[in-house]
């Protein structure tokens, strides 16, 4: 027990919380943007898997991180675009479409990985690059605070900036106002000439962009390679964090950190010779409790069908 406590109350632990939370912050913010636009999207898992693989392929073949990031973004956002096209244009059931894209993400990435590297488990055969960690001058010399805040992966800082970005986008820009209005009352938005489908499409692409950054982080920061099914449900934890944050930016960020803490804790406990299987359950149980606390999604389904005969 002492070992656990001394692990938790250390700068290292808080550092690892930020490290582990990074993908959750990204995906929960992505879920938030999409949710504000009134779309129920569960395809983040698939988006992130594709972006993680794309990042590895891009950086390995070009030997250039930027190409890796770009290919990751393109592949992740392609999934978002497929989702958007089917759900918004062809009126598909969003949950089933999301489910299908997650199946595609799980199988399709392994398919591509095998074709490229001849391995179905991980991309270690490919010489992919990592995104560097950076030390922040001045802050890194402050005791404790420096240990916690400095020395993270670039994308971890990007995640923190994304929190501010999403807040400004949703609350302080014309686009954000439109996204919110489309999510809350699409008929109202339509009646003043806002293109509902287009706005939702944009929200989904922004969400796809942010979620893809989370995927890229997984294979270029959190780990130095891609492994099959490496998201392990993080896409869904992000949705749960967004629910817990009730669609507001900063509460969602806090919820993502909470889930990240649970995962960091589970990582520590696994290293303490406790049965790792039981410890691996912790983040998921934590998410389930979180879902019960807020009572899921209170927003009504936006795309309520119109009664057509007047």
């Amino acid at each position, binding site marked *: 027990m002492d070992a656990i406590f001394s692990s938790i109350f250390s700068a290292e632990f808080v550092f690892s919380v930020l490290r582990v939370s990074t993908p959750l912050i990204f995906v929960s913010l992505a879920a938030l943007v999409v949710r504000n636009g009134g779309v129920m999207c569960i395809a983040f898992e698939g988006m992130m898997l594709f972006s993680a693989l794309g990042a590895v392929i891009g950086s390995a073949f070009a030997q250039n991180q930027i190409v890796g990031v770009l290919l990751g973004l393109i592949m992740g956002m392609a999934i978002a675009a497929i989702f958007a096209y089917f759900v918004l244009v062809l009126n598909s059931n969003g949950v089933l479409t999301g489910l299908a894209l997650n199946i595609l993400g799980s199988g399709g990435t392994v398919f591509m990985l095998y074709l490229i590297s001849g391995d179905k488990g991980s991309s270690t055969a490919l010489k992919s690059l990592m995104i560097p960690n950076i030390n922040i001058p001045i802050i890194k010399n402050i005791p404790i605070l420096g240990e916690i805040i400095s020395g993270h992966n670039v994308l971890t800082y990007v995640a923190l900036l994304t929190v501010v970005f999403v807040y400004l986008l949703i609350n*302080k*820009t014309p686009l954000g*106002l439109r996204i*919110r*209005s489309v999510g809350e009352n699409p008929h109202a938005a*339509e009646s*003043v*000439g806002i293109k509902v489908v287009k706005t939702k499409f944009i929200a989904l692409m922004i969400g796809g962009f942010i979620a893809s950054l989370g995927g890229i982080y997984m294979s270029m920061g959190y780990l130095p390679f891609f492994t099959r099914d490496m998201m392990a449900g993080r896409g869904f934890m992000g949705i749960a964090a967004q629910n817990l944050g009730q669609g507001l930016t900063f509460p969602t960020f806090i919820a993502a950190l909470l889930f990240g803490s649970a995962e960091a804790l589970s990582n520590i406990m696994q290293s303490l010779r406790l049965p790792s299987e039981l410890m691996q359950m912790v983040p998921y149980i934590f998410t389930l409790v979180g879902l019960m606390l807020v009572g899921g999604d209170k927003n009504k389904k936006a795309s309520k069908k119109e009664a057509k*005969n007047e």
Partner: protein
Amino acid sequence: MNNVKDEYILSMENITKIYGNGFMANKNVNLRVKKGEIHALIGENGAGKSTLMKVLFGQEQPEEGKIIYKGKEVKITNPLVALDHGIGMVHQHFMLAPSLTVAENMVLGIEPKNKGFFDYAEAVRLTSEVSKKYNLPIDPNAKVKDLPVGYKQRVEILKILLRGVDVLILDEPTAVLTPQETDELFVQLRELRKQGYTIIFISHKLKEVKSLCDNLTVLRNGRVTGIASVADLSEQDISRLMVGRDVSLTIEKDSPKTKKTVLKVRNLTYKNSDNKALVSNVSFSIREGEILGIAGVEGNGQREISALITGLEEKQSGDIYLFDEEISSQSIRKLREKGVSHISEDRMTFGTVADASVEENLISDRFYKKEFNKNGLLDAKKIADLSNKLIKEYLVKCDSKNAEIKTLSGGNIQKVVAAREFSANPKLIIANQPTRGIDVGASEFIRKKLISLRDKGSAVLLISADLTEVITVSDSLLVMNEGKIVAYFDDTNDLTEETVGEYMLGIKHQTAEEIGGCCYE
């Protein structure tokens, strides 16, 4: 201005609209509107008024026909195009995002910007400016969800004025307003007409049309049945054009033979989540063989009363007795087994399943009973016999018992509901807007059925916004206004619509003693 065509700012020619379910909502409709007039588009529920306006506003695309606006043919493919042309619409259901502020709603779609960010201060300024210009005061910083209905509508009107429209479409704007708010609205509309705006006023209320409008177009079953100057027609004339015959209903019925008290409602109060009392302190009784009517503008607590009695809503305070037994804690199945039948005001949400067959819709209250089950499975033959019998008896026009409900017309869907509810040997029937939006034939059929059930001893609570119906069909009548009972008449025979209307609109109010007449043991 010599050219006749120039007289009309807008004309819709030969509009035909068919919906995806095969329903023809408009058939060769013509509408011509002069500049600077208030033009009434009038017709019963389901006559095709809203569809026509959706076509004009670009929300629906017609299969045939054209729109000529300011002398030129225009293609209105979406609301943005309509707004660009200067055509704006105030919808019956407000097109507002409730959690946004008035100013945010006002500028939606034309947001003022400052360095790429949304300039909220400018939005507030614009709102105040337009609100002053048209003398329609509003608080720009209030959240829309906190505003009373009349103010929400005001936001809607300001919203389209801000966009610089010439033609305003108002879709049944008075349906949700109190009489005072209606008067206020009319003053505003006359003022706008004076300033040169053209207004299309959709309504099915004759008095409003007479007092406000210049010309009118009447629709019935998706077709135009009359175009005239309002001054040339009496209310009777207009109503004949709307329904194709005199509206004065005559229904043959004997005087009621009342017996035991079936339902007693005492001190019923119901508040919504905003703590607003939707039903306050309502008490009444109904006896066997009696139809008690509740008249009132929709949304004055009638929906809640029927939901509370039938168990769809949980009771908060007060008592509901069925044959002297307090029933409000019982399950809906128990209530139905005790003989409570319910025609919901919303037949597509509660009354039926659109994607299920007529048969499946007919058995939903009794499918579990022994008589319809055999060897652990549903008894297909007995159920088919019942369905075919009910379809025949209630004259449901459908392909077969296996036709999906959504392929039926409104009137036939309502007949399916009535067939199920009336065939359950009801002791008490709660009929909430049983004939709303359905054709004359089906309405008459349902009314007659109600009376014959009452003659067989059922107690009926008839809730209706249709004054003619509720006065003619009921034996005694309650009038509701803002969740309260404001009048009780123990005999409807000599009652006129004018009298009831005065109570319904809150102009008159009976004393507590007079109202108390509807409570007996």
